[in-house]
């Protein structure tokens, strides 16, 4: 299908989604980020510095790996993995943080704050701040600091201050609330380095732009390898940064189907889910109109996923728009399906994926069976699974209840 109106519009609307539902205190700062990014985007010196960091620090371009053995489990379709797991810090997150720390310096700010759920974005942010000599404070739900103690240690090793958030449900959404509260009070010298393609305008667009390289590289790599465009692109969706990262360059390619796989948890029809497009409804959350898991009075419902990185009760507004227009299709993948795909990739390809990315792999298995052996499916392997070894070991019974072999 074609898109008559470019999105977002100049106020950050993606059709009826997106926008800026933020306190007046933050509008000036959001305007500043928007204006500075508009300038930086067209500044060759900025782009050169960003590209150089992506190349010599993050390790781009990331590889495209054909998963020949895994393919058997995906109806024989060719499965091509975009290896964001091989980036420095272990996921696609590094693209966005490197871009935003450069932007922070351009704005003359000296302090960076960020939220983190599983710790991937927090670690990436702490890394980039260490590199650039910026003060760094990471807000993390107290529950998540317990689940991801090793990542807390990593961030502290990198010089960041990690603040456990003890209010509300003590998870990612509350960490985001707390980071906004810090930002309101310190906005004159602080940049909020938002980690996903959600939040008030311009964050969804800024984060998409900084990750655009992922899909652009992959598109070229798939053409080189197969001589054609893929039939489908698959990514996991929590807030949706890795999905928009790999989708964006393919949106104009009408023959390429785009699939986002949400965290179904125990099932999208249960209350133990994080599948906000499948199971949620229209609402305003964290600064944007989007799909959100909420009760009949608009109170946010607790989300659930085995993957901390997808455990978020809403989704970025561009995904809401792509779902609404039908340009992308969003389906839930349960914890069980994701863990089976996780196991299969480990065993068949010798790659331990992040549990987040395992949702995309489970989706690719489903798509491959649907599309058959002639299909080419591109999967964003958005992160590596080192951080998930404890969860996976407990899930598969590889260690006893004390975590001993």
């Amino acid at each position: 299908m074609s898109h008559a109106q470019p999105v977002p519009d100049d106020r950050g609307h993606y059709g009826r989604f997106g926008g800026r539902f933020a306190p007046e205190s933050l509008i000036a700062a959001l305007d500043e980020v928007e204006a500075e990014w508009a300038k930086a985007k067209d500044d060759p010196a900025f782009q050169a510095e960003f590209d150089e960091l992506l190349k010599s620090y993050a390790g781009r371009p990331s590889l495209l790996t054909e998963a020949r053995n895994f393919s058997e489990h995906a109806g024989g379709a060719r499965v091509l993995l975009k290896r964001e797991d091989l980036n420095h810090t272990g996921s696609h997150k590094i693209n966005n943080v490197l871009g935003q720390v450069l932007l922070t310096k351009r704005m003359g700010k000296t302090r960076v704050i960020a939220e983190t759920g599983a710790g991937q974005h927090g670690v990436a942010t702490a890394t980039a701040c260490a590199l650039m000599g910026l003060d760094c404070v990471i807000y993390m739900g107290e529950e998540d600091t317990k689940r991801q103690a090793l990542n807390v240690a990593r961030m502290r090793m990198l010089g960041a201050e990690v603040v456990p958030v003890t209010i509300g449900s003590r998870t990612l959404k509350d960490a985001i609330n707390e980071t906004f509260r810090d930002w309101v009070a310190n906005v004159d010298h602080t940049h909020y380095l938002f980690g996903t393609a959600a939040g008030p305008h311009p964050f969804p667009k800024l984060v998409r732009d900084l990750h655009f390289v992922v899909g652009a590289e992959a598109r070229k790599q798939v053409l080189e390898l197969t001589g054609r465009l893929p039939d489908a692109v698959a990514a996991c969706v929590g807030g949706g940064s890795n999905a928009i990262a790999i989708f964006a360059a393919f949106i104009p390619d009408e023959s390429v189907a785009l699939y986002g796989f949400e965290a179904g948890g125990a099932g999208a029809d249960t209350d133990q889910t994080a599948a906000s497009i499948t199971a949620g409804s229209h609402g305003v959350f964290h600064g944007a109109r989007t799909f959100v898991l909420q009760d009949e009075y608009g109170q946010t419902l607790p989300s659930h996923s085995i993957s901390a990185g997808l455990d978020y009760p809403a989704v970025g507004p561009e995904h809401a728009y792509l779902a609404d227009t039908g340009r992308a299709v969003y389906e839930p993948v349960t914890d069980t399906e994701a863990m089976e795909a996780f196991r299969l990739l480990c065993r068949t390809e010798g790659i331990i994926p992040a549990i987040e990315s395992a949702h995309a792999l489970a989706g690719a298995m489903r798509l491959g069976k649907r599309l058959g052996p002639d299909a080419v499916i591109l999967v964003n392997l958005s992160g590596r699974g080192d951080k998930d070894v404890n969860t996976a070991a407990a899930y598969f019974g590889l260690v006893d209840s004390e975590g001993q072999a």
Partner: protein
Amino acid sequence: MTATTLQTKLAQAREADRAALVGYLPAGFPDVDSSIRVIQAMVEGGCDVIEVGLPYSDPMMDGPTIQRAADRALASGTTTDDVLRVVEATAATGAAALVMSYWNPIERYGVERFATELAKAGGAGVITPDLIPEEAEEWYAASEQAGLDRIFLVAPSSTDRRLELTTGACSGFVYAASLMGVTGTRAQVADTAEALVRRTRAVTRESGLPICVGLGISTAAQAAEVAAYADGVIVGAGFCQRVLDAPDLETGLVAVRSFAEDLSAGVRSR
């Protein structure tokens, strides 16, 4: 259009050459019936206007005290319908009753339905801390139709252009955030407050739109200080704190009434 009770209250205060006292409490804190009694004590103590808070799961602009109060309200099962019931009881005290709400619960309830029900309950208007005029198209229509005041916020970081835009979109009053930060008590009134009121006055000279100042005001002396240049003084966390600190509701009511009396004296000593 006839004046709302809010407009009348603010005009009366102006006539008496004092600032109005605006008190905030989340509906349902500590439970629905008790919140009505706390609000009655606030009005007895001298509040002219009550902001009935609609408790929300993700209060991005609130500090720990109001977060705790809202959490208690949600835990006690408070719904939007309960909020409307508290508004009705508030209006019955003779004070002007406003709702202070993050936008999502209103949108979820139905913007037009909420406006209609609120007007029916005797509410005078709504303060929307995370809704800016640019996103408020549906709210304009619904509030116009129901005859409700629309209160948006201005902040020390607002540009002059935005002060003009935002005050132009308000009726009743404009909420001037005294500082860059979230709700909660502070040792001193921020020096950004007076400057913001002065800049806001410059764009409301013709309309005469009242300016009420909130965030961080929690003593009679602070209320007096702000009353010197503002049309209204907004106090929230201080009331919540007294309820949180009290061993039982009756003790809390005494403390709340006496606190309102102190503040009320403050807004009268310009």
